[in-house]
């Protein structure tokens, strides 16, 4: 039940600009995310809740920290969370491509004190859709 938006019917998605960084935010143009790299995807989406250094946050409930997170060891867990969501975590399967999901999962699994070397591929994402 999404509210109607001007952009809802206009999908002139532009390719993410080369050289984009977390310091020059990308604003997507359509209903899907235009960010292309793990770093910019994290900066444009994830850090809204999980915070810029993956430290999470706490209020009436909490957003789990991704920093030094042993739950990230099995790549299937973050892949499933990003695709399908759970509890407060929204699903992103319709707004991110397989390549984008792989990029952002690889990013969080190799940053914020995580160093899991087994990078996921877009095919791994596809299998979990």
């Amino acid at each position, binding site marked *: *039940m*999404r*509210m*109607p*938006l*001007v*952009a*809802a*019917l*206009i999908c*002139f998605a532009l390719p993410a600009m080369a050289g984009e960084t977390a310091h020059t*935010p*990308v*604003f*997507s*143009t*359509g*209903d*899907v*995310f*235009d960010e292309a790299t793990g770093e910019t995807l994290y*900066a*444009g*989406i*994830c*850090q*809204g*809740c999980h*915070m810029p250094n993956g430290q999470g*946050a*706490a*209020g*009436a*409930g*909490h*957003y789990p920290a991704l920093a030094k997170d042993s739950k990230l060891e099995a790549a299937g867990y973050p892949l499933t969370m990003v695709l399908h*969501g*759970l*509890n*407060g*975590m*929204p*699903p992103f399967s319709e*707004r991110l491509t397989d390549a984008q999901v792989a990029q952002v999962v690889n990013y969080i699994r190799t940053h914020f004190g995580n160093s899991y070397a087994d990078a996921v591929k877009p095919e791994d994402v596809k299998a979990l859709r």
Partner: protein
Amino acid sequence: MENGTAPGFNRRDLLTIIGLAAGSGAAYQAMTSLGLAAESSYKEPIQLSGAPKGASVLILGAGVAGMTAALELRKAGYSVKILEFNSRPGGRNWTVRGGDSYTELGGDTQTCGFDPGLYLNPGPWRIPHHHRGVLDYCRRLGVQLEPFIQLNHNAYLQSPRAFGGKPQRIRDVKIDFQGHVAELLAKTTSQGKLDAGVTKEDQEILLKALQHWGALDKNYAYTPVPASEFRGWDKPRGGGAGGRPTPSQPIALTDLLKSGLWAALENFFLYDYQTTMFQPVGGMDAIGKAFAREVGDLIRFNAKVVRIQQDDVKVTVSWEDAKSPGTVAQEVADWCICTIPLPVLAQIQLDAGPKLKSAMAAVPYASSVKIGLQFKRRFWEEDEAIFGGITFTDLPIEQIGYPQFGFNRGGKGVLLGAYQYDSPRAFEFTALPPAERVKRAVALGAKIHPQYEAEFENGFAMAWHRSPFTMGCAADWTEETLAEHYEDLCAFDNRLVLAGEHASYLPAWQEGAILSALNAVERLHRKALGQ
């Protein structure tokens, strides 16, 4: 319209033709369907009485749903208490004014710098005329309303990819779209291409109707002179010598179609946004405050719920005083109405069955951002004659909402400088620090109103996923999740029932909160009476 857009044909002729063609039954039918359209699932004030002696209800959350439930249950004779996480009543029913301080998740604190009398409604900001529950409580609780203008023909539709980024008046897009469509359809009709589906008699009526609706000339063409009666003139009508106006030129059909600006027109046609809409005078929180005048004595503020236990006879809720963390107290009651937003509730240790728990886990909350910007002068009124209403844009700010009060008085004003709901932009703005959100909203809005740069003073940016008390804006149901989980989410689980906008078919609306609370209260009362 005195000069008429359809020479030789007036409104009375049209009605006569419709009357002849359809007969008087059509009028009756129209009235009946109008009556049905006015129906709401809200009928009248709920009348509960005769609560079992000593029966108690604990309500979690002092938002609109929680306070509605509290008000009605106490009236029915229940002993009622409310636990509220915030230090104020209202929940998302909230207004931010100068001096207000707010710390979002992540720790960024904003102190609002608006001048006295100016405000931002970071949550709900408008009330449809068919939200009978909200309107009834406003009337009963003495909340004064004023119009909220959804469609201002003089506000803009804008896209960086259309007309070189130059904003177009909503009037021009709406009327030119109607005019071109009317001309095309009239041409098709005149050429006999509609013969298969439309009788000759109806084609005649249709042609006349298109002439009226689409500002067509006597040849059924969309041309500047009759069109100007709808869309205004290039040189406006004057008084005295030289007062004769110059007609305006419609936007060409191909430019209009390729602009994509027509996509925003649904914002004025959808049921939820049709005139008349309302807002409370002085800020949306007038509603929350009015409820709190009734039930404020029942509220324990700064209470963070950490555990909800229940058995066959009672509910026990453990809560922590936010002012002295680590101190856990308990509240026991016969029944519990829980209005805690689902992203928060899903993390609280809760005694409930698997159906309710799966339902809670399956409903994410939409991302949404609202940014209030204060300007030194009301340039949108003074320079551009925009009094209230909303500009829709394909820029990342998506909307600019103009203040819906204090028209034409001069002085400062606060605009809604961005409003994203559940779009990628909502996430992307949330991910920025508050000051950066404001800075971006100013830079982007300046592409529509260049006056921004000289007139901007200060701003306040609310990103709902960073809200400590909701962790999101509102329930984001889909047809699939509704089918699978909605009834489970609303069902009693032993002695506990959920209420709030998320437990309604009007998610994100205060009406949904009220209707779900009333429904929960009714069912609770029946259970308590053993019915």
